């Protein structure tokens, strides 16, 4: 018997029992579609989050404060101490200038953040108050829509000027152009000199709800401090990144008088956008595995459904099987006939599931884009290969038992079942 003959037999059987065949494949369709959607959505989320970080600029090297380890306890205590309110005050704008002079650094900015209530003559709004150096816009991808960003001179002279995120501007001033208007933050008047263009939906915080002020103005006029919480630097050459990170670490350790031999004593931490991508990969990878595992369970449920339906179908077709054996079919030929039928059902179900999954993922991407998320539609090839492989294996596993039952039927007994 040729492979072609088995396919012909299967197609006849499918046409005879169209509804049953469709129903038996449905479980596979749904689980394969969910595998595709889960994997694609994870890619979309990853792309979106990385896009969020890219909007802060490319080739970034982030220096943040960190509570030094006391030495004896595990490294988790640093984050814990910071959460409990331990503030590190050692990172300064002088550190920023020193880092800026390092060979592979293009430029950088220091910043300090906090929440505040901003009041216009007509309205008020809780905003993210972001005190950043004037070099901020040399790195960040935000675009000014009205007016301008503040200058080095305004920062140095502690001028009370503010640049508004688009949402702040529209909520505080409505249709009026905010440039030239005054807002009040912590009982101090700030002149609005610029407004950012809309940046769209965001994951961690809403960049359209930020009020930018010169970092020194924030330090001296409002907070009464002289430290920053982080310094964002842009490097030139990625191949020298490791050396650059080491340069920054050495520089700050020297400036902060930290024992060079013990990184646990560092009161800062240097990270890059690559680190962010890696962490994201780990987190999303974990979620993906979990969800794919759930989908795999549904695949098993679908497979058991197929086994069930095939089993019933073999009971119904006992006479046919008996006749085939009586006219010379071997057990192996009967086994193959039903196994190929099962694999065809699961494979076709799998292909339909892939198509359905792609369409759903496309829909999710479309909705996300309409909602303003920078979401890219990706179907990784491996997910398609995985789904197809799963479907075939599922057919083999769950088709085997009923197919063997069919192959073992006694022809005389079976022929009595006409």
């Amino acid at each position, binding site marked *: 018997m040729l492979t072609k003959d088995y396919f012909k037999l299967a197609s006849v059987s499918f046409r005879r029992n169209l509804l049953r065949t469709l129903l038996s494949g449905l479980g596979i369709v749904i689980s394969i579609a969910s595998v595709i959607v889960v994997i694609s959505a994870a890619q979309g989320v990853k792309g979106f989050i990385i896009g969020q970080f890219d909007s802060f600029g490319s080739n970034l090297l982030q220096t943040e404060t960190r509570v030094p380890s006391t030495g004896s306890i595990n490294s988790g205590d640093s984050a814990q101490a910071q959460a409990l309110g331990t503030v590190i005050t050692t990172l300064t704008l002088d550190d920023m200038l020193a880092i800026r002079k390092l060979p592979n650094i293009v430029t950088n900015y220091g910043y300090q953040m906090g929440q505040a209530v901003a009041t216009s003559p007509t309205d008020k709004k809780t905003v993210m108050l972001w005190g950043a150096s004037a070099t901020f816009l040399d790195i960040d991808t935000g675009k000014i829509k009205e007016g301008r960003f503040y200058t080095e001179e305004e920062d140095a002279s502690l001028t009370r000027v503010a640049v508004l995120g688009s949402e702040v501007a529209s909520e505080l001033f409505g249709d009026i152009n905010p440039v030239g208007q005054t807002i009040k933050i912590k009982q101090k008047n700030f002149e609005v000199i610029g407004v950012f263009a809309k940046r769209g939906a965001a994951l961690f915080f809403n960049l359209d709800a930020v009020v930018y002020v010169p970092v020194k103005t924030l330090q001296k006029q409002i907070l009464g401090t002289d430290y920053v919480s982080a310094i964002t630097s842009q490097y030139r050459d990625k191949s020298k990144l490791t050396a650059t990170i080491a340069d920054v670490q050495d520089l700050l350790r020297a400036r902060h008088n930290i024992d060079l031999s013990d990184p646990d004593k560092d009161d800062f931490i240097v990270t890059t956008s690559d680190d962010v991508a890696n962490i994201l990969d780990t987190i999303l990878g974990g979620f993906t595995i979990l969800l794919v595992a759930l989908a795999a369970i549904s695949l098993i449920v679908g497979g058991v459904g197929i086994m069930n339906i095939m089993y019933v179908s073999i009971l119904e077709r006992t006479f046919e099987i008996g006749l085939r054996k009586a006219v*010379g079919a*071997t057990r192996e030929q009967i086994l193959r006939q039903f196994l190929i039928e099962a694999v065809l059902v699961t494979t076709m179900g799998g292909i339909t599931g892939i198509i359905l999954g792609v369409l759903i993922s496309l829909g999710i991407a479309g909705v996300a884009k309409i909602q303003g998320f920078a979401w890219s539609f990706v179907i990784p090839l491996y997910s398609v290969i995985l789904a197809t492989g799963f479907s075939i294996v599922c057919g083999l596993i769950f088709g085997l038992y009923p197919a063997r039952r069919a192959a073992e039927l006694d022809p005389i007994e079976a022929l009595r079942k006409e």
Partner: protein
Amino acid sequence: MTDLIKIVKLNKQYENEDVVTPVLHELSFNIKSGEFVSIIGPSGSGKSTLMHILGFLDRLSSGEYFFEDKDVSKFTEDELAQMRSQKVGFVFQQFNLLPKTSVLENVKLPLLYVDITEGERDKRAREAVKSVGLEHRVNYLSNQLSGGEKQRVAIARALVNNPAVIFADEPTGNLDSKSGQQIMKLLYDLNTKEGHTVILVTHETYTAEHAKRILKLKDGNLVSDELVPEDRRQNAISGELK
């Protein structure tokens, strides 16, 4: 002529959960190629059981069975399937056609398990359909046929592999007398004109007398093995009931 079938002291008993049902006892006989033999006996005498064993659908419990001088009692399942595929054709009382399937496809069924091209299968199946006079029904579905036509399709299916022997188990049992007569004429012609070996199982003496030789079973024992007198045979074939 050499012996096509040779059985020696064949016994058959069914064993279902401690219950042992002896069916055939110490049967010994030979059948030569080209013979037309009837196996006759009352209902329950073991005729069908014997035919299933001779046709490789069932196994004997003890004794010997040689087919074309090969000891088939020790054949594996797959070897028996191969014998069914190549050496025998069956015609059953219940016709046993695939429902909702065309005459051509029904006749082709045994050829599916033979390694020949689809074109060759089609050609042989059409020839077999023609040889039973049903070429005008070749695309009819099996359930659109009369009983006599169904049984002719079954005979075509039994012939299509060009088997060494055709077994027919009560082939007229579900037919009116006229159709039954036609089927018997067909089997008679297959033996006398085409030289096929035919083994017929029946409980009717009149039907059995279409054959040259009658083996009589009673309670699983072979009670007689006689040739049919030529005048009685001619009576049966000409359809003169008595």
